[in-house]
């Protein structure tokens, strides 16, 4: 039963992940951006748990737990506090118009799938299709970072990219070894904290967290 539906479920979750990535790409409001990020974390957690269930690899449970703690609760919480303190809560970001962004995103997805297709064939895992999706979501969040000019969305994009990587690890290879997983998680956490501190300092310097103010160092 699980053996039968598990993989399909995982693929479903992968699709949801990709959908969320697109949503984040097109999301204007910071607050909902963070919520979407949290949702992505949740999906990631479920996917990891599911894979753990299917394969019965214990360390995947651990990483699922870490994901839950980190990506679903801790980081979103930090971000929420951040935007409340910086009171950019209701900030609305003006992006390049969304349709073009969507089209470009779709191109990226196609590229990612094409790239991943030959690899997935090799994969011994039940969830081989997910690699392409993971790659796609990584590229999408990269694209998102490029198109955002405010600091917080860039941070979110950065973290979302980490989500994509996690998903790649889980989907393609049933997760990296434990040490590495933990190390990565730690890095992400520290990174988030440091970013938080930075945002405050930047804010206190330029009373704004718009990265357009960060364009003084350049060549004339």
């Amino acid at each position, binding site marked *: 039963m699980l053996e039968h539906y598990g993989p399909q479920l995982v693929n479903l979750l992968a699709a949801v992940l990709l959908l969320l990535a697109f949503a984040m790409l097109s999301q204007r409001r910071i607050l909902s951006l963070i919520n979407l990020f949290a949702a992505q974390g949740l999906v990631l957690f479920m996917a990891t748990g599911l894979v753990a269930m299917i394969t019965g690899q214990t360390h995947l449970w651990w990483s699922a737990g870490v994901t839950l703690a980190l990506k679903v609760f801790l980081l979103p919480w930090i971000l929420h506090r951040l935007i409340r303190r910086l009171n950019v809560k209701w900030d609305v970001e003006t992006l390049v118009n969304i349709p073009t962004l969507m089209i470009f995103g779709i191109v990226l997805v196609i590229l990612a799938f094409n790239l991943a297709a030959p690899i997935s064939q090799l994969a011994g895992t039940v969830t081989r299709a997910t690699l392409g999706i993971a790659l796609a979501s990584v590229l999408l969040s990269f694209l998102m970072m490029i198109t*955002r000019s405010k600091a917080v969305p860039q941070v979110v994009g950065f973290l979302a990219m980490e989500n994509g990587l996690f998903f790649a690890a889980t989907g393609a290879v049933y997760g990296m070894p434990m040490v590495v997983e933990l190390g990565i998680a730690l890095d992400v956490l520290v990174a988030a904290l440091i970013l938080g501190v930075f945002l405050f300092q930047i804010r206190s310097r330029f009373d704004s967290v718009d990265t357009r103010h960060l*364009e003084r160092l350049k060549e004339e």
Partner: protein
Amino acid sequence: MIDMGLPFAGVDGALAAAAAWIALGLAAMAAPASLALCRRALYPAGAVVGLALAVVALGSLGAPPSARVLPLGLPELPFHARLDELSAFFLLLLGAVAACVSVYSVGYIRKDDAGAPPGLQCLCYHVFLASMALVLVADDAYFFMVAWETMALSSYFLVTSDHRHAEIRRAGYLYILLAHLGAISILLCFGALQAGSGNYSFEAMRNLQPAAGWASVAFLLALAGFGVKAGIVPLHVWLPEAHPAAPSPVSALMSAVMLKTAVYGLMRVTLDLIGFPLWWWGVIALAVGLASALFGVIFAAVQSDMKRLLAYSSIENIGLIVAGFGLTLLFRGFGMGGLAALALAATLYHCLNHAFFKSLLFLATGSVLHATSERSLGRLGGLIHRMPWVAWCALIGSAAIAGLPPLNGFVSEWLLLQAFLLTPGLPQGYVNMLVPVAAAAVALAAALSGYVMVKFYGVVFLGQPREARLAEAHDAGPWERSSLVALASGCVLLGLAPSAVLAALEPVTLRFTGYTLSALGGGWLFIAPIDPDRASYSALLFAAVAAVLVLAAWLSVRAFYHGRARRAPPWDCGYPWLNARMQDSAEGFGQPVKVVFGPAFRIEGEAPSPRDPRPRYRETAEDRLWYWLYLPVARAVERVTALVSVLQRGRISVYLMYSFATLLALLFFIR
């Protein structure tokens, strides 16, 4: 031919001399601020080392090549040193000149709190000497390049030793920049010569025969690389800036020896490492050399700074040397060994001569500079009364550089012209056409150098002092005096004993052309490069007869008439209010050349209006190449820079886009 057995291998002697020089330099750093240490101990010791080096070189001229591998350098490529006839000849030149210049420096260096401390200068000076010696004995590409660039760096520090003046800094910068570019091109030349064998020792390069194409590439790279250092047109721009900027002993060394190391390098690469010159290389070298010769002498004629004038005259002489070298290649290319030997001998002879008279003149200007603290010809004059020693030595030097018999300059030009007169034998129509023109160019350059020297000597030493304070000018001190006299007598001896010099040159010509000159007749009194019936010259006899005639004239006038003389103010066609400003200025003396060779210059200036109460006349004659070649390059670089800096506009999302684009591009690229 001279053969004095040495108790040790020549190369060891040369290396020991270099080591000794370096040691002296480091010793100076014990007390960088102490002038006395340098004057009393180090420079005299340096002179002794130079003398010893000269003796060693002379001794190993006849001896077979000696080699030695030092435990330094790269793992697979330790420093190879080798001393063959060519190195020996140039080492002889280096040692002799270095000895004289060091002696001179003892008297020359003064307390100068502003410039670099004397100890530091002493260090750079001796490292400079040592690196030149090492360049001459290096026998692998790496060692050669290390010595070569050390030479450039140390001489750069010497040039900029008084770095408070912006123009000196500019000169130094230009010098080091061009030197470095030249070095890179030499490096690539060696890269082409090793032809992928990965073996950079000259021995290996000698043995493997590169394809003609690669050989030509190597030759052109070498011509460019060494040409920068030698100062051949159009790579000469650093030379007239750097030589005046440097202290006079350094100018003397740079002009007399350093330029010759470039000639040495060119000969080493072409005649030795490549080994089979193609005739058209000779044509190129000939053309470039003659162009440099004419360019140099024409510009020398219009200079108004005595050291610049001498610097341009160096360009001329180097041009003649390169032309002679080109002739050598031409003959070698057509397999005419004997004629190649003649041309090579003429070239080397001229190297030696130029080393002597050019260092003599630079040192003389140094004494003038110290006595009057004045470099501009426009404010000198009449010094023959104040500083007779310097003046008479300089007279010999000027006559020699003007190529007048019976001094040394004439001998090498005589040999060179003889070589030219033999070129109609060449089996190549166009080259034959080229010959008369080339010979004419050489003759013209020689005549013009006479013009230049009359200007130089007449304006500096003759006439009336153009400034009042020149009356306080003092003659050179004993140290400077002795070195000047030594160099001057060197010029005379080299002029009077050509057969001895040619005999000393035999081993070199024998090794690189397979022929010698004395085999073709002559004897101790006459030199007859081809055969006595064709052309011969005896400086000794010539000078003797001339002297006899002059003396006879003088004595008989004294005998038949009287020796009465009365001193009176100058007559000047009866014009009573004569003053120093009525003499020709340096610019005025250069005027005819400006008129005759107008197109060569980029002349701008203004002449005063007829009713100008305080008339001022200004005219500058600049080098067109600067505007045709160098500034455009600089501008091009500027443009590219502006283009590139678009990459760094400061917006972070753009930066992210770069890496994103890179990623996507690569991902496409591998699919």
